C-alpha cells in the first residue's frame, strides 16, 4: 500500500507528539510521583508507536514500544523515576527526533537503536543493584598508587576520598563533575576517580561519584570549596587510614588490569554493564567523530558556489585582458590564481557532494516489499553506493530511480515458474550500480528479466503514429522514453501507467543528464543514467550564429565538422547530411532562433547527442572551448525554453547557453 500520502500528516503529528513527550518528561522529572503525567506520557508514546508501526517505520515503533515497557513499570510502581531513567528516556526522544527528521529529509540513514534498547532494558532491570551502590565503593589500587600514597603521607599530605552527590535535577552532570574534578585538582593531586575519568566525561554515572586525592588542606576546607560549586547536594570526605590495608588487597590481585570497579554488585552483572557501557562509549565516540562536521544551510553553499562562479568569470576576464595586452607577468600570476580557483571549485563541489548511498538505501526495503507484492523472488545487488553526487542531484534522482526499479521488478523479472521454465535461476536479480566516469556519474539499473519486446514497441509506436521504418533496433528501444508510451497491456499498481518513462527522462534531462536503454530479449534490460557531477560550472563550446555568441555544453557534443552548405540534402522535406554513412538531421540554429542567416558556404555542424537522438546544429563560426558558469536567466526570460541559462564571458559579454535537449 502506498503510504506516502500520509507521510506529511505523520511527520507533523509525530513532531507534535515528541514535543509533548519532551515537555511531559521534563515535568515528570520535577514531579516523579505524578501518575497523571505518567499516563499522559504513556498515551502519547502509544500513539506514536501506532502511527510509526502503520507507516512501516519499524525502528521507531520498536523504540517507542520499549519506552512504553519502562513507562509501564512506573505506572505499576515497579520502578521509581530517577534522573538516570529520565536521561535514557530523553536520549530515546532525541533519537526518535533524528529518525523523524531523517524521514522528513528523505535521508535513509539508519540509526542503530540497539544500544538504546539495551539501556532501556538495563534501567528497567538493574535498578535495584544500582541503588545500594552508596558508600560501598572500593578504590582498588595498584602498587604504583599505593606508593604514591605512602610517599604523600611521608611528606605530610592528607589522603582523602570524597563522595560527591549531585542534586537530583542536576543537568550536564559530566560538566559538573569536571568542575569538581578541576577544583580538587587545584588543591592537590588526584589519584583515582570512581567511575573512571572517561566514564565521568561520558556521563556514565548516577547521581554520585568518588574522587581520591592528596592535598595539604584539611578535610573541611576541601569540603567547603566543593560545596561552593552549585548543584552539589552533599560532600562526604573520608581520610584514608594510615596503612593501605583498608584498601582491598584481594581485589587488587583479582583485577590485574587495574581497572576500577564498583564491586558491591555481583561481578557478572557488573561485567555485563561494563560491556554495554563500553559499547555505548564506543558508539558515542563514533558519534563524536561523525559530529566533527558543521551543518551548513544549503542556501549558503549555493551562495558560496555562486561566488566561486563569479570568481571564475572574473578570472577569465583577467585572462582575456592579459592576452589582449600581452602582459607576461600578469599571465603568470593569473595561472596561480587559476589553479587556486580550480581548487576552490573542486572543494565547493565536494562540499556539496553526498554519497548516493542516501538514495540507494531505501531500495532494499522496496525490493523486499515489491517481491512480496508481486510474488517474485528478487535479489537486489547494490554496488558503488559511495559514489558521490551533487546534493541537488541526490535530491532529485530518487524518484526516477524508483520508477526504473519498479519497472524492472514488475515488467523485467519474470514470474518464478516462468524463469524455471526458461532455464534461468529461479531468483531474479536487479543490479544497481553507480560509478564515476570522467566528469560524469553513471548509474546503471540492470535486471536479468525478459528484456524489451521489440515487436511490441514497434506495434505501439505505429498505433500512436510513429513510423519505425529505418530506425535502428536501439532507436526503437529508446522509444519507450516517449510520452504516453506504455506497452504493458495491464496497468498494475506498481508500474505501467505510461507516465513513468518520459517522466524519468525529463527529470534526468533537467539535471543535465542522459538516460538510455540497452536490452536483449530474454536476457534482460539495463538502463544507463549519466549525470554531471556538478551543475553550475561546465565546459562549453562557444559558437557564433549570425552576430550572436552561444554556448553549448560539451556534455552533449559528439563531434564538430566543417561542411560546405551544398552538402546538405533534403529527404522527406527535412534537411540532413550524410556523415560517415549515417544520415544526420540538421537544425539551422539561425532559423530556430530567428536570427538572420549569414551568406556563406563554409559552415560548421555541431553534432549533439541527447539520449537516443543525434542531431547536427548548423552554426556560422566556432569560437573555442571554455569553462563557463551557468547563471539562471531570471524571471523575465524564464519562458525561453531554448536556453538553460546565461554566462558572462571573459570580455564581459553575456552569452546564452543553449538547452540542446529542448532544441532538438
Amino acid at each position, binding site marked *: 500500500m502506498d503510504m506516502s500520502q500520509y507521510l506529511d500528516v505523520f511527520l507533523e503529528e509525530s513532531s507534535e507528539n515528541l514535543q509533548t513527550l519532551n515537555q511531559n518528561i521534563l515535568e515528570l522529572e520535577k514531579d516523579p510521583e505524578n501518575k497523571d503525567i505518567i499516563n499522559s506520557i504513556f498515551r502519547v508514546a502509544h500513539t506514536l508507536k501506532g502511527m510509526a508501526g502503520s507507516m512501516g517505520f519499524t525502528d521507531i515503533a520498536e523504540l517507542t514500544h520499549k519506552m512504553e515497557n519502562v513507562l509501564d513499570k512506573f505506572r505499576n510502581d515497579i520502578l521509581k523515576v530517577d534522573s538516570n531513567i529520565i536521561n535514557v528516556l530523553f536520549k530515546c526522544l532525541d533519537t526518535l527526533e533524528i529518525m523523524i527528521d531523517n524521514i522528513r529529509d528523505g535521508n535513509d540513514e539508519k540509526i542503530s537503536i540497539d544500544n538504546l534498547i539495551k539501556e532501556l532494558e538495563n534501567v528497567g532491570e538493574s535498578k535495584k543493584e544500582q541503588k545500594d551502590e552508596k558508600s560501598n565503593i572500593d578504590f582498588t589500587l595498584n602498587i604504583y598508587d599505593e606508593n604514591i600514597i605512602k610517599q604523600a603521607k611521608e611528606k605530610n599530605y592528607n589522603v582523602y576520598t570524597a563522595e560527591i552527590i549531585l542534586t537530583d535535577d542536576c543537568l*550536564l552532570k559530566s560538566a559538573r563533575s569536571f568542575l569538581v574534578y578541576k577544583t580538587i585538582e587545584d588543591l592537590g593531586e588526584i589519584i583515582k576517580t570512581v567511575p573512571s575519568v572517561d566514564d565521568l566525561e561520558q556521563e556514565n554515572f548516577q547521581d554520585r561519584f568518588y574522587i581520591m586525592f592528596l592535598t595539604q588542606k584539611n578535610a573541611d576546607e576541601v569540603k567547603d570549596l566543593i560545596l561552593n560549586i552549585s548543584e552539589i547536594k552533599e560532600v562526604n570526605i573520608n581520610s584514608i587510614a594510615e596503612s593501605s590495608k583498608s584498601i582491598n588487597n584481594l581485589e587488587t590481585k583479582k583485577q590485574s588490569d587495574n581497572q576500577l570497579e564498583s564491586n558491591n554488585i555481583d561481578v557478572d552483572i557488573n561485567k555485563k554493564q561494563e560491556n554495554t557501557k563500553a559499547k555505548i562509549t564506543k558508539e558515542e565516540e563514533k558519534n563524536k567523530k561523525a559530529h566533527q562536521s558543521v551543518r551548513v544551510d544549503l542556501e549558503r553553499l549555493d551562495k558560496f558556489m555562486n561566488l566561486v562562479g563569479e570568481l571564475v568569470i572574473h578570472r577569465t576576464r583577467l585572462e582575456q585582458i592579459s592576452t589582449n595586452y600581452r602582459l607576461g607577468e600578469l599571465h603568470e600570476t593569473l595561472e596561480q590564481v587559476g589553479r587556486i580557483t580550480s581548487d576552490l571549485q573542486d572543494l565547493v563541489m565536494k562540499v556539496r557532494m553526498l554519497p548516493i548511498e542516501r538514495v540507494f538505501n531505501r531500495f532494499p526495503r522496496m525490493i523486499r516489499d515489491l517481491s512480496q507484492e508481486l510474488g517474485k523472488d528478487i535479489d537486489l545487488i547494490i554496488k558503488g553506493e559511495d559514489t558521490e553526487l551533487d546534493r541537488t542531484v541526490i535530491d532529485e534522482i530518487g524518484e526516477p530511480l524508483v520508477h526504473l526499479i519498479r519497472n524492472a521488478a514488475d515488467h523485467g523479472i519474470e514470474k518464478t515458474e516462468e524463469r524455471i521454465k526458461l532455464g534461468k535461476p529461479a531468483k531474479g536479480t536487479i543490479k544497481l550500480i553507480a560509478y564515476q566516469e570522467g566528469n560524469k556519474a553513471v548509474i546503471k539499473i540492470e535486471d536479468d528479466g525478459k528484456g524489451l519486446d521489440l515487436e511490441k514497441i514497434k506495434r505501439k509506436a505505429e498505433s500512436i503514429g510513429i513510423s519505425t521504418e529505418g530506425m535502428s533496433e536501439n532507436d526503437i528501444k529508446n522509444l519507450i522514453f516517449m510520452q504516453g508510451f506504455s506497452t504493458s497491456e495491464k496497468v498494475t499498481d506498481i508500474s505501467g501507467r505510461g507516465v513513468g518513462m518520459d517522466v524519468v527522462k525529463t527529470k534526468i534531462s533537467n539535471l543535465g543528464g542522459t538516460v538510455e536503454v540497452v536490452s536483449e530479449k530474454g536476457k534482460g534490460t539495463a538502463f544507463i543514467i549519466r549525470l554531471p557531477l556538478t551543475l553550475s560550472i561546465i565546459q562549453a563550446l562557444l559558437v557564433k550564429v549570425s552576430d550572436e555568441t552561444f554556448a553549448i555544453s560539451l556534455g552533449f557534443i559528439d563531434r564538430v565538422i566543417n561542411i560546405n552548405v551544398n552538402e546538405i540534402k533534403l529527404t522527406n522535406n527535412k534537411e540532413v547530411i550524410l556523415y560517415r554513412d549515417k544520415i544526420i538531421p540538421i537544425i539551422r540554429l539561425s532559423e530556430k532562433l530567428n536570427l538572420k542567416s549569414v551568406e556563406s558556404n563554409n559552415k560548421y555542424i555541431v553534432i549533439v547527442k541527447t539520449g537516443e537522438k543525434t542531431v547536427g546544429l548548423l552554426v556560422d563560426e566556432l569560437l573555442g572551448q571554455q569553462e563557463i558558469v551557468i547563471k539562471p536567466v531570471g524571471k523575465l526570460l524564464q519562458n525561453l525554453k531554448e536556453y538553460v541559462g546565461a554566462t558572462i564571458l571573459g570580455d564581459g559579454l553575456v552569452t546564452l547557453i543553449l538547452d540542446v535537449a529542448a532544441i532538438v
Partner: protein
Amino acid sequence: MARVLIVDDAAFMRMMLKDILTKNGYEVIGEAPNGAKAVEIYKLEKPDVVTMDITMPEMDGIQAVKEIKAFDPNAKIIMCSAMGQQAMVMEAIKSGARDFIVKPFQPERVLEALKKVLG
C-alpha cells in the same frame, strides 16, 4: 551589593537575567551582546562576577573567558550553557570559568551559583 556583567547575544536572555538579578539585590553594571564587548566592559568596570553565554557572534564565551582571565586571573565567571553544550562547558571550565548554569534559567539556580561563586 555585588556588581554583575551580563553577557548574552539574545536581548531576551539578558533581560531575564537582569530581572532575576536586580530583584535579588545585585547590581547589573553592564550588558554585552558578544565576547569582544564583554572583555571591553570587563576591563573598564571590573565587575565582581560575569555571567557568560557560550555561543555568541564575534567572540564566543570561551574565548572571552580566556581573555578576561588573562587580564584578571581572579575574575569570577559563570557560564550560561544550553543542554548539549557539555564539551564547551568543560572547555570554559578549563579556561577558568568558576561555575555554570543551564538554560532555561531557574532563578534559584542562578542565585545559588552567584552566591557560591561570590562566597
